[in-house]
């Protein structure tokens, strides 16, 4: 069984700071990491590999050449092979264009039985690429997966809902997007790390995956970022002073004045 895991290299948004003067995002020195949900996606694939014979786990990313570093981390965790879709033509892609490129990569990998993606990347935050890639491949999709069980020709997936969950039976091949509740990602092993640096990473450009440059990246993106800005900071409020008793009384009277309670 061949499993493809879509992984994205993202800036660690916990470390992102705002330039207080220019009001822009400071990305310099911010570490790049494997997107957290994608670590869960990879773990899910690796667990199937642990459980069943003849499972191959392939990791796939679209990104700049430096994304190879993250792919080696995935190899060190236990993935069998890594593919990097890298081409200037892929730059500036929105989720529609990203999913076109990823779908072309998955087609080229061939005979894929199962595709995993994270629910959401912590930079773009859209949660759209998984379901859109499935749509382009004509694969059934289950999103927000928190538990899975393999069956003969399908999967039983538990899909998280805000008010509970659904147990869904889906045909294979299919694509699943996973959430962190699914599992606890494993660490890289020392041997894995040593091995990972010996392995070849397959790099493909748009021609390799049979796409026209016009079908990739910015030129194939229906959405455009008109402007971006940092959220306006709220003005500093009032610091209530005094003993806890005095503070409590002031607060209650303020709330009464404003008819809030």
């Amino acid at each position: 069984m061949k499993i493809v895991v879509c992984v994205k290299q993202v800036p660690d948004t916990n470390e992102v700071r705002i330039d207080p003067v220019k009001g822009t995002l400071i990305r310099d020195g911010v570490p790049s990491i494997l997107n957290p949900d994608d670590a869960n996606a990879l773990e899910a694939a690796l667990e199937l590999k642990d459980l069943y014979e003849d499972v191959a786990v392939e990791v796939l990313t679209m990104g700049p050449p430096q994304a190879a570093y993250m792919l080696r981390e995935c190899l060190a965790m236990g993935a069998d092979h890594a593919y990097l879709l890298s081409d200037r033509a892929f730059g500036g892609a929105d989720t529609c264009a990203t999913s076109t490129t990823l779908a072309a990569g998955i087609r080229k990998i061939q005979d894929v039985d199962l595709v995993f993606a994270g629910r959401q990347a912590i930079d773009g935050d859209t949660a759209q690429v998984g379901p859109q890639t499935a749509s382009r491949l004509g694969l059934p999709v289950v999103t927000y997966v928190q538990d899975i069980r393999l069956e003969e020709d399908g999967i039983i997936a538990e899909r998280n809902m805000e008010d509970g969950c659904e147990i869904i039976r889906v045909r294979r091949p299919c694509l699943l997007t996973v959430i962190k509740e699914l599992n606890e990602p494993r660490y890289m092993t020392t041997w894995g790390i040593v091995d990972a640096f010996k392995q070849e990473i397959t790099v493909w450009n748009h021609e390799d995956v049979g796409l026209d440059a016009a079908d990739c990246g910015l030129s194939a993106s229906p959405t455009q970022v008109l402007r971006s800005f940092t959220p306006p900071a709220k003005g500093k409020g009032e610091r209530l002073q005094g003993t806890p008793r005095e503070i409590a009384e002031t607060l209650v009277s303020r709330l009464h004045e404003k008819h809030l309670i």
Partner: protein
Amino acid sequence: SPEKKAADVSAYRGVWVFAEQRDNEIQSVVFELLGEGRKLADELETELCAVLCGCGIREQAEELIACGADKVYVADHEILKHYRTESYSRVIFEAIERYKPEVVLLGATHIGRDLGPCLAVKAGTGLTADCTKLEIDRENRRLQQTRPAFGGNLMATIICPSHRPQMSTVRPGVMQKSVRDGGRTGALIDLPITFTEDEIPTKILDIIKSVGEKVSLTDAKIIVAGGMGLGSAEGFKLLKELADRLGGVVASSRACVDAGWIAPSYQVGQTGTTVKPAVYIACGISGAIQHLAGMQNSDYIIAINKNENAPIFEVADYGIVGDLYRVIPELMEALG
């Protein structure tokens, strides 16, 4: 060719709202979408339509009309009883092809964020995720869609200039609900089902509703939220007492959910619920950007924190530096 595109764009009119239902109950985000959609439709001088899919849901169309829809497209069929990606996206995509809406809005729920991306690919258009603000540029009828990214550190305004429909998922709890008017009238249009059960690759075997009380953070007027500063799960009992006293509900930061102190449905923030109550009392919450993303639009924010430099104070209208276990009992005392 660009001319063909331009002609295509002008063929699209009308603002559509996906009327998400679960167990035949229209979800509250739909009324927020109708409120916002009504404004957009008026600005575009076009009609507001709702798309309602399910089984035995026809009667609900009246309610959508009362809440602002001029037309309701209804797909009422056994195969649509529960939301499934393939069945819902097919019916709605076929309707988009036929009736050509200019704008399509969906709630950014676990259902909307599954349906929206698949619909956008089918329709060959863009989709903006999790919007918190929508505006029309009257000059060119473009929908300007503003959304947070990078964990709430950055806001981006996104347009979809040359493809139609312009599609957005909209974060629940952000837009103003429409005002109900029982006297409104509107039209009902049936959508055909052009496929059979065999063509749908998924089956729902079971639906499990989370046990325990249902929390409706989005509708709450007063929220008393707790963070790691509570020290233990026990702390939520004190918050519950305060919330009960104020007629409010309890909520939580993600750290407490991760610690297993409280169920995930109580989580406020970027990966939890967005709330906009009249009063939000943050007790022992540091104010991480991901938490702020879910509550900073509350009318009045009160922060109780031991650390005077906690970022929560940056967004607080009333800041209290102190131990929540000393302040909250005094507060309940002062409330009488």
